[in-house]
């Protein structure tokens, strides 16, 4: 028994030391969603080690809080959360991670929605008869490339709090990323110019920032109310409306009911497109710029 106890203690000690050595190297950042992981990597470069608690193929509203999340959070120097109620589950994971640095109000906690002009902020009384409404506004802003300067500024602020000695490198990385984004933006704007004003239907209202940025119009949503399965009557009306308006595309998330979107599109003479609703949501959307590039190319072809 004593021998077994010694072995267990030795394993724990070695494991703890290994962790400590790793910790000394880089700033350990945990993000709630993969878009923020990609942007944090863009700002932090080689000086950060970033992990996302969710994957691009997941619905971020309904992430399951697993102890593996708590393990990542336990070791984090900085937690980057989206905010605006997209990733409210993070509080439960943080509570069980026992990491004082990243509790709400701690220096290692940054909420990305700070300074972002949120769209679809309810101006009247809201309740859950309207579905999964977000009283603070639509939280799906991360894949609007026009908001990347604000998002990366918030990330930079957070990184500077925990690693102020790397200010110059972080600022240089951010400037280089924004320069690349600017360059790409010109290309994307040119691609989207011919389809400007085109109408599309979305499955769940998480494209509004992207559509607004590139001058597309959201005609309607498959979900009558966010998060609530659509009624047959709503679908009939939507198909009629799509036919009348000549809608060519239904944009659907990889985690949503792609089969239903395909059936609807077939009925309405359109096509359903699985979009990169986040980094890693579809093949090839491995980083922030690639995810936007995927969406731009998909829509530019679909709406031509």
């Amino acid at each position: 028994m004593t021998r077994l106890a010694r072995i267990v203690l030795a394993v724990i000690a070695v494991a703890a030391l290994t962790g400590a050595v790793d910790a000394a190297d880089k700033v350990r950042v945990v993000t709630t969603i993969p878009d923020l992981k990609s942007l944090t990597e863009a700002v932090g470069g080689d000086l950060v080690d970033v992990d996302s608690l969710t994957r691009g193929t997941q619905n971020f509203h309904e992430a399951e809080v697993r102890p593996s999340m708590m393990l990542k959070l336990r070791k984090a120097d900085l937690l980057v959360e989206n905010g605006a109620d997209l990733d409210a589950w993070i509080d439960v994971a943080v509570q069980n991670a026992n990491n004082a640095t990243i509790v709400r109000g701690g220096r290692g906690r940054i909420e990305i929605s700070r300074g972002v002009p949120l769209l679809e902020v309810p101006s009247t009384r809201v309740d859950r008869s309207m579905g999964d409404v977000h009283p603070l506004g639509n939280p799906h802003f991360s894949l609007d490339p026009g908001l990347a300067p604000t998002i990366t500024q918030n990330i930079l602020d957070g990184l500077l709090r925990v690693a102020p000695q790397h200010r110059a490198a972080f600022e240089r990385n951010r400037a280089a990323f924004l320069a690349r984004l600017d360059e790409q933006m010109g290309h994307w704007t040119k691609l989207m110019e011919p389809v400007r004003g085109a109408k599309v239907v979305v499955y769940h209202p998480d494209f509004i920032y992207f559509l607004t940025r590139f001058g597309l119009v959201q005609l309607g949503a498959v979900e009558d109310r966010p998060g609530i399965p659509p009624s047959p009557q709503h679908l009939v009306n939507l198909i009629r409306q799509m036919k009348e308006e000549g809608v060519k595309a239904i944009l659907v998330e990889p985690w949503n009911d792609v089969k239903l979107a395909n059936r609807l599109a077939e009925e309405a003479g359109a096509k359903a497109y699985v979009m990169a609703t986040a980094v890693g949501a579809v093949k090839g959307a491995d980083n922030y710029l690639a995810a936007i590039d995927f969406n731009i190319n998909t829509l530019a072809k679909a709406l031509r």
Partner: protein
Amino acid sequence: MRGLIIVAVWLAIVLVPGLAAAQDAEALRRELDQLRRQQEQYQKAIEALSERLKRLESQPAAVAPAPPAPAPVAQTPPAPGSSGTPGLLDLARPREPFALYGQRGSGQLLFDMGVVGDFVGNITQRNVDKANAGTFAGRENRFFPREVELSFFGQVDPYARAEVRIESGEDEPGAETGVSLAEANLTLLTLPWGTQLKMGQMRARFGYSNQIHEHDLPWVDRPDALRNFLGEEGLTEKGFEATIVPDLPFYLEALVGVFNGDNDVAFGYGKLSQPLVTARLRTFFELADEHAIQFGVSGASGQTPDRLRSQLAAFDLKYKYRPEGWLHPLLTLGSEGIYSIRRVENDLGEKTTRDRFGWYAYAEVQPWRRWAGGVRYDWSQFPVDPGREWAVEPYVTFWPSEFLRFRLAYKHTERSQREAFSENGGSGRLVDELFFQASFILGAHPAHPF
């Protein structure tokens, strides 16, 4: 003299206009200089504006200009240890919150609140009803509010979090429903070395399902082993719980609790001088992203009202299989067992030890997002009385939305003896029950852990 006067007059006539003219010229020169300076300023301003316009025009139209850097939320605090964990001195120093609900404007609550309603109906045989031997003893063949809970939770300040839950429900048939304090506790979140301290009244983290509220259980009723060894309400105690999550490559949570020991089934002495002490170890493994398993062991030791030692040991296991891209698990398996060692005094006044055991296992399949079906098997002895019981309970759950749930279940129970379940001439040896459950959530409700 006259000549002098003439000369003076002449000079005055000649020079005064000249002087006046000279003064006008000076003023004009000054005005001109002023105008020139203004023109230069305007020129510079125009050039600056042109330059800015040129710069803006050269950027792609869609990129919003980077907003001004947000105002610093607060000063950076004294740097804690390299790991980011504050030391004792850091904790002693006053600190400012960085971003505590910075997004929320005036007039907004700084905490969350929610209401949960959980209603249960059950139908069973007449002799079971007479004997008060159903799962919901004394409320057989009734539809009743089992738990209506008003909860408040949120950050107290940057260092602590609190939750208060007040609940009401029908304990016995009638129009009356009592109101009680279900939980009220404070958790210190910023203690050093990965520790937290929770204090107040709480559902003790003993085993897996004890800490889950009735309305959040994956079944209509609490498993028989839990009800037999910890009572209808479970182990809800007043005291302290300290947890530590060491910085290891795998997840491990260790917990120690010290409580009054108010649970009248297992403990009940109710004094900190002879406290109820609990302990728990919990770990978790992921096999790829699709498979996850949680394993826990727990222990509790306290005294009964007769100052006799009562000890519990428990294990719990939960496995989930969530196929790639699914929003919900396809398969959930779980099991929990409690082993009780209790000193009792028999009719002859002799003290003896009772070793008893109870366990359950369940499997749930959720092929669609809004529908799930499962079955639970229970087997349990009684902590003091002789005999045992087993039960099987298939159930089906339907969620019209995330905040509304209906459940239908059937439970068949068999007990090895009828003596303890034969009140009023009835019998609870063989029990068949049909359960119906309706639950709703109004407002905020924290996410459920694994």
